[in-house]
């Protein structure tokens, strides 16, 4: 039993690695995608829109299989499965984050841009110092939901053979012929999500110094 828990903790580390790396890459990539989606150039914005629609319209499992196996069939080369998991999750979540960013950016009143312009702010400074901080505050609830979904979605990495928490729980369950490990995994996911929820609540409160 102690051994099982240890094993599951190790697997949890894998799940957390997937979680962390996906966030690390998809959060900034999502911003690029959002910018693309809002681009004045209709070709760019339409292409990006199709990308977003595909990412949101097809199951993540399928995207993972595709990301892992398609490069071989197309380019004749393949790569590490963990890398594939990170790439798959990143491009999927970037699409979701992009739509959240876009909603946030478009909800900032035009007056904020006009005031910045008239005061002589550069475009970059306007974005980093005026718009972005306000966007962050507005998108926190939506981001919280998405990040919780990511915690749960890490369970799908086993599709291409990555031994994350849920895979290990299923193996242990097979070995010991008991549903207990799966149940324990459920508790782990629940705890991780409780932490994520709590963090977002705190962040939300912290940003409540202005309305």
């Amino acid at each position, binding site marked *: 039993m102690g051994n099982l828990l240890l094993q599951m903790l190790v697997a949890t580390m894998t799940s957390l690695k997937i979680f962390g790396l996906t966030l690390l890459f998809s959060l900034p990539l999502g911003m690029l995608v959002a910018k693309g989606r809002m681009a004045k150039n209709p070709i760019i914005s339409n292409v990006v829109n199709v990308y977003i629609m595909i990412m949101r319209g097809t199951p993540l499992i399928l995207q993972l299989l595709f990301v892992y196996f398609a490069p071989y069939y197309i380019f004749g080369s393949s790569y590490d499965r963990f890398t594939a998991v990170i790439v798959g999750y990143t491009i999927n979540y970037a699409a979701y984050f992009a739509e959240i960013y876009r909603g946030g950016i478009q909800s900032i009143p035009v*007056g904020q841009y*006009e*005031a910045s*312009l*008239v005061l002589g*702010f550069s475009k970059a*400074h306007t974005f980093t*110092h005026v718009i972005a901080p*306000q966007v962050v505050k507005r998108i926190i609830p939506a981001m919280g939901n998405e990040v919780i979904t990511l915690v749960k979605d890490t369970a799908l990495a086993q599709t291409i053979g990555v031994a994350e928490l849920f895979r290990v729980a299923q193996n242990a369950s097979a070995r010991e012929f008991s549903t207990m490990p799966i149940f324990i995994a459920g508790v782990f996911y629940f705890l991780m999500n409780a932490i994520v929820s709590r963090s977002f609540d705190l962040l939300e409160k912290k940003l409540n110094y*202005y309305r």
Partner: protein
Amino acid sequence: MEIITIDNLQKSFDGLGVLKGISFTLNEGEVLSIIGPSGSGKSTLLRCLTQLEPVNGGTINVCGQTMVSSTKEGVVSYADKQTLRSVRLNLGLVFQNFNLFPHMSVLRNITEPQMHVLKRSKQEAEKVGRELLKKMGLEEKEKAYPDQLSGGQQQRVSIARALALNPTVLCFDEPTSALDPELTGEILRVIKDLAKEKMTMIVVTHEMAFARDISDRIIFMDDGLIVEEGTPEALFGNPQNPRTQKFLNRYE
């Protein structure tokens, strides 16, 4: 000395003329009020001047720099980026609905532009900021956030923010129209003080008594054109144009 010269300024939205050839000049230390019915193009005029809207024709000259000019054939050419930037710095604009940065404290709202645009040090910017807040009667509020202030206080912060960049001309677009009557007084007093200090200003307003009080000159606009122009005494005491007469009648 002429600070702003506008000649035959034209602006249309979707082909619909909103400014149909506006020409006037503004001299140093002068206070110019612009009055006129709703939709006559007063806000659009200020927005063209402050580069918030591109113009469709005409010339704008600010502090000796040509910001935009156009040929007889209607080809509009704006100055290079550098010049536009320097023109922008000569003009301060106070918005009707303040447009303060809600995530910055009152003081930071005033220091941020100084540090980023004028490259002042934080210390220097805060010194200037505190002086201006004092002048606006808000020395106690520097740590507050905009949403914790009344409308009138917010408007005074936004005036301080504009003044902190030392603009040559300060433009106001109906600075009191988002305020309830009680709060209007504070702002009018601040602008009056600025007028006394010989700040050059353009004030779009529908407070007739106030316009009469502070202005060196008043422009009456209707339907995208300047209908009448003159000293407050001339315009209010003896309006020449029937449209002016009719408009002012409503306010007696």
